[in-house]
């Protein structure tokens, strides 16, 4: 029996990292929002590693924040260690990563959700989507509650038909002992969506007191209290280190001796796992020559005794897992608290999505996170934010927002998913962003905060402080251009002491700052000047001046890219009738229905000639349209 349980603007199914962002964005934009979760204790669960950020992923978190999302603010409250990675590799790839107190993170997120206006939080298992005439109407839960809504966001992570695999054991279940969502995925098929099966995995957790840390190497956090959020620096708390150890010949022997018990090699796993996160048995088999592999021991929180054994993701039987762990230096007397496992789940083919993350098949239906074929908390959060905003915009009859590849990693992530699709869980990497030098973690606010403000997700105070920073940066750049340094004895002596060539002629301070060996501080010293500006500002000045040449190169590329993005292809275009397209291109185009010529050009199998043909047709159409209007 179903009963009518209420009416909402937006319903979000699943309270993982995507669902939290989606529901918060929707509620903050003024939509009456319902967030449903299988288990209220599992909100914002981190079932895998206890960390947020890292290269590309950290960029995503900064962008989510700059656009008005939640993840950065919550991790700033729940972190037990912070590091800036890649500091020697150039500003584009500097990346923040925080170790999280998992429980704290969940509680902080739950508190935020519970205290957000317009947002209802409820525990329920969704079994059915209500769809009428190609448009989503609402959902039905296992307990028979029917909720109506104008838009629904599915963020079910790895829960859809989740199946846990440990050796020859397998059972239905979600991650970390959670329930699986059993009925929704067949319903999704019924309403016309294409599903597929992916796989991922996680390592065992062990007890802190069973680790002999003296046999491992300490990995401390940074001294500096870098914030994830542009909103401001969090209070500095005690930092907790991670620890490094490694596998041994004995570990590898144990794995080889038990390979026949691995579900992967026994063919028990059908789901496609990611190349970038192979299990330890995969690594040992594929990289035979490697005598050892790194193993990081990461605390799961301040109070928790659990440690995450990074590098040892596995689906080998439990007894083998214990034996493997014991062969690792420092873990001789290990007490395993939870075994590692592989998990298979249903997800959508993201080629069915528009760049707004709305389904092309069902109006008003959005999806975000692992159900779209991605992996990772950060990738989920980024999509959740965009899906939440656009779901709200559907309800409020506003134009959707599109984050493109030149604006943010978020744009790269979504465009890759909806244009190229993915054959394995998709992980964000810096090498996927072609305009990487412009998509830095330090300037995410520059790129996205104006949009966030316009949307109403960034408040006035924060926007004003952003504007001040921007003005300060511009003013300081102008000042440096005007300061002239002459080849005086003093200046040249100082230059030599900075291991830099002495001057031969007078030069602008901004010009001198381009020398790789000189910092902004050096330049001020040379000029005999001081500056009251914050490091946030001077850091921008330094990057903008130093990398000007490269930045301009990339900006030119972006201009070209934009021209193609701005050529919109009408939705109803019938590709099969376009003479001159190659067959493969016509099929792919008909399936993916690219929004713009730019998107079309990134579809594999669509050649430059096909694009030229499309261009001609679009123009032809435009003119025909013109004739109709005149007539």
């Amino acid at each position, binding site marked *: 029996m179903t009963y009518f349980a209420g009416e909402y603007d937006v319903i979000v199914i699943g309270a993982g990292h995507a669902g939290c962002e989606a529901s918060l964005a929707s509620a903050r934009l003024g939509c009456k929002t319902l967030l449903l979760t299988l288990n209220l204790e599992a909100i914002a669960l981190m079932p895998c590693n206890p960390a947020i950020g890292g290269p590309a992923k950290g960029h995503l978190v900064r962008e989510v924040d700059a656009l008005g999302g939640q993840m950065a603010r919550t991790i700033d409250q729940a972190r037990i260690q912070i590091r800036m*990675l890649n500091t020697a*590799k150039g500003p584009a790839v500097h990346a923040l990563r925080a170790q999280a107190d998992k429980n704290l993170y969940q509680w902080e997120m739950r508190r935020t959700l519970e205290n957000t206006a317009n947002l209802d939080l409820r525990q329920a298992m969704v079994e059915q989507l209500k769809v009428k005439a190609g448009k989503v109407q609402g959902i039905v839960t296992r307990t028979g509650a029917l909720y109506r809504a104008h838009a629904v966001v599915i963020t079910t992570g790895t829960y859809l038909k989740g199946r846990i695999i440990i050796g020859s054991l397998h059972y239905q279940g979600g991650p970390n002992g959670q329930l699986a969502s059993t009925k929704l995925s067949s319903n999704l098929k019924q309403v016309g969506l294409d599903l597929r099966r992916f796989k991922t995995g996680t390592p065992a957790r062990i007890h802190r007191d069973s680790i002999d840390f003296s046999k491992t190497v300490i990995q401390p956090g940074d001294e500096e209290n870098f914030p994830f959020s542009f909103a401001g620096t969090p209070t500095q708390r005690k930092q907790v280190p991670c620890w490094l150890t490694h596998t041994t010949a004995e570990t590898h022997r144990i794995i080889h001796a038990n390979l026949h018990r691995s579900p992967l090699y026994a063919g028990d796993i059908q789901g496609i796992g990611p190349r970038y996160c*192979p299990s330890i048995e995969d690594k040992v088999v594929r990289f035979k020559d490697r005598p050892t592999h790194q193993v990081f021991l990461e605390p799961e929180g301040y109070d928790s005794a659990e440690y995450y054994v990074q590098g040892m993701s596995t689906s080998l039987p439990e007894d083998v897992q214990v034996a493997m762990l014991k062969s690792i230096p420092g873990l001789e007397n290990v007490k395993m608290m939870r075994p590692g496992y592989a998990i298979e789940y249903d997800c959508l083919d993201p080629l069915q999505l528009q760049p707004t993350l709305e389904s092309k098949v069902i109006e008003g239906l959005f999806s975000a996170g692992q159900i779209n074929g991605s992996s990772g908390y950060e990738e989920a959060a980024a999509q959740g934010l965009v899906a939440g905003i656009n779901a709200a915009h559907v309800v409020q009859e506003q134009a959707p927002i599109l984050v493109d590849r030149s604006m943010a990693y978020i744009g790269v992530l979504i465009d890759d998913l909806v244009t190229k699709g993915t054959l394995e869980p998709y992980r964000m990497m810096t*090498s996927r962003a072609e305009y990487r*030098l412009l998509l830095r973690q330090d300037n995410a606010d520059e790129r996205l905060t104006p949009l966030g403000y316009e949307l109403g997700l960034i408040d006035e105070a924060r926007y004003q402080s952003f504007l001040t920073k921007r003005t300060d940066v511009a003013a300081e750049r102008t000042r440096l251009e005007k300061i002239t340094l002459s080849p005086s004895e003093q200046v040249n002596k100082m230059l030599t002491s900075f291991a830099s060539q002495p001057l031969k002629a007078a030069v602008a301070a901004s010009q001198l700052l381009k020398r790789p060996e000189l910092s902004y501080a050096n330049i001020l010293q040379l000029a005999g000047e001081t500056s009251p500006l914050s490091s946030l500002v001077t850091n921008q000045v330094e990057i903008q001046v130093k990398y000007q040449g490269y930045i301009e190169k*990339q900006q030119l590329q972006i201009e*070209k890219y934009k021209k193609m993005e701005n050529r919109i292809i009408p939705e109803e275009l019938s590709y099969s009738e376009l003479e*001159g397209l190659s067959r493969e291109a016509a099929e792919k185009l008909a399936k993916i229905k690219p929004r713009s010529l730019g998107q079309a050009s990134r579809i594999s199998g669509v050649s430059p000639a096909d694009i030229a043909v499309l261009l*001609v047709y679009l123009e*032809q159409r435009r003119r025909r349209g013109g004739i109709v209007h005149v007539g």
Partner: protein
Amino acid sequence: MLEDTIAAISTPPGEGGIGIVRMSGSAAEAIGLATFNFASRVDKPITHHLYYGHVINPINGKIIDEALISFMRAPHTFTREDVVEVNCHGGILPLTKTLEIILAQGARMATPGEFTQRAFLNGRIDLAQAEAVIQVIRAKTDIAMELGVKQLVGQLSREVSAIRKPLLTILAHVEASIDYPEHQDVEELARDEILRVSILCLDKINTLVATADKGRILREGIRTAIVGSPNVGKSSLLNVLLGQQRAIVTDIPGTTRDVLEESLNVGGVALTIVDTAGIRDTADEIERMGVERSRQALADADLILYVLDVTEEWVPDNEIMRAIGAKPCIIIANKVDLLLSVDILTTLSQTVAPKPLVAMSATEMLGLTDLEEAIIQQVFSGSVRAEESIMVTSTRHKNALLRTHTALSDVQDAINLGYAVDLIAIDLHSALEALGEITGENIGPDLVEEIFSNFCIGK
């Protein structure tokens, strides 16, 4: 995409002996002015007016060709953009050189049909012609693709792959170290190593670019096949045309056992000339393979020189005649020095009409001028058309190589200046992208694959 300046050779080379390099786009005029020395002082050229002077290489001031130039300003042009046309006289070589210089000045090689496409998009051509535009794009691309495929299996793409592979490996290494900063597997690649690989690749590219000029004639010349029965004097003919003893000549039928390819210039027209093994059935395994390749050369040829021996009775070879079909062909009656009466020539020329007959003696160098004239006649009358796209493809390749070169030089500069590795990666990316334009490969998927197959990273 639409606003950049495009350039191409717009008349099939050889027609009338004059070729036109045409540019369209906002930079056309500036590029035209930079690459042209007016014979008399011109401050600002009048639109739609022909000027006489020389095409020069602005880098070193060297004169490329005597030429006429006209500047046609928008909107009264074919494309409705600024158009510049350079009329060169000297045949294919100066023509391609001119194009190269224009490309080096910032124009982009036009894609097949792109001028027409722009004309359409800018409203110059009406709707009815649109279908035709698409056909042009499609048809020319099909040819280009066919050529692309040919080149893919060819020497060039092997060489390019040999450059691409180590670059991809170092880029994968750099990227892996960025995306997985803490992995022992991917300790940062020493700058020396990046430098070493990029220098190595630069060397290879220099060699490729240096051979590109020669290679271009080879690939771009009018493909000409010398065919005929064994021992009629095909190799001797090649040798006289080349002015050197290139092919082995003996009185033993079946001397030439494989296809031999050479390039030469006849009156400004580049020929890629192939001497073939005489086509006949033979038991000799090696010769049979040669005969097979001769058949292929015959099929590929744009122009055929069919040699016969006047001292023997001539029976047209059915297979050869079929292969020739409607292709332009010159019948060469060789060994006329051994002829006692010219009557037979009259008969022959009637038999082969309307195909032209040239009487000559390869050993005595008789009739050579007649042959050259006949070739030029065939080419300039338009019956032989060097396919435009052949030229496009390889000039495009050279251009891509030069861009790879620039990017790799930037890599070196960045390393020498001590720039951070993310900047170096940007230039490595550009280098690989430019190489990818030759081989048609995309770096994205390859790079990710390379990272995960070389490095053992995971959670």
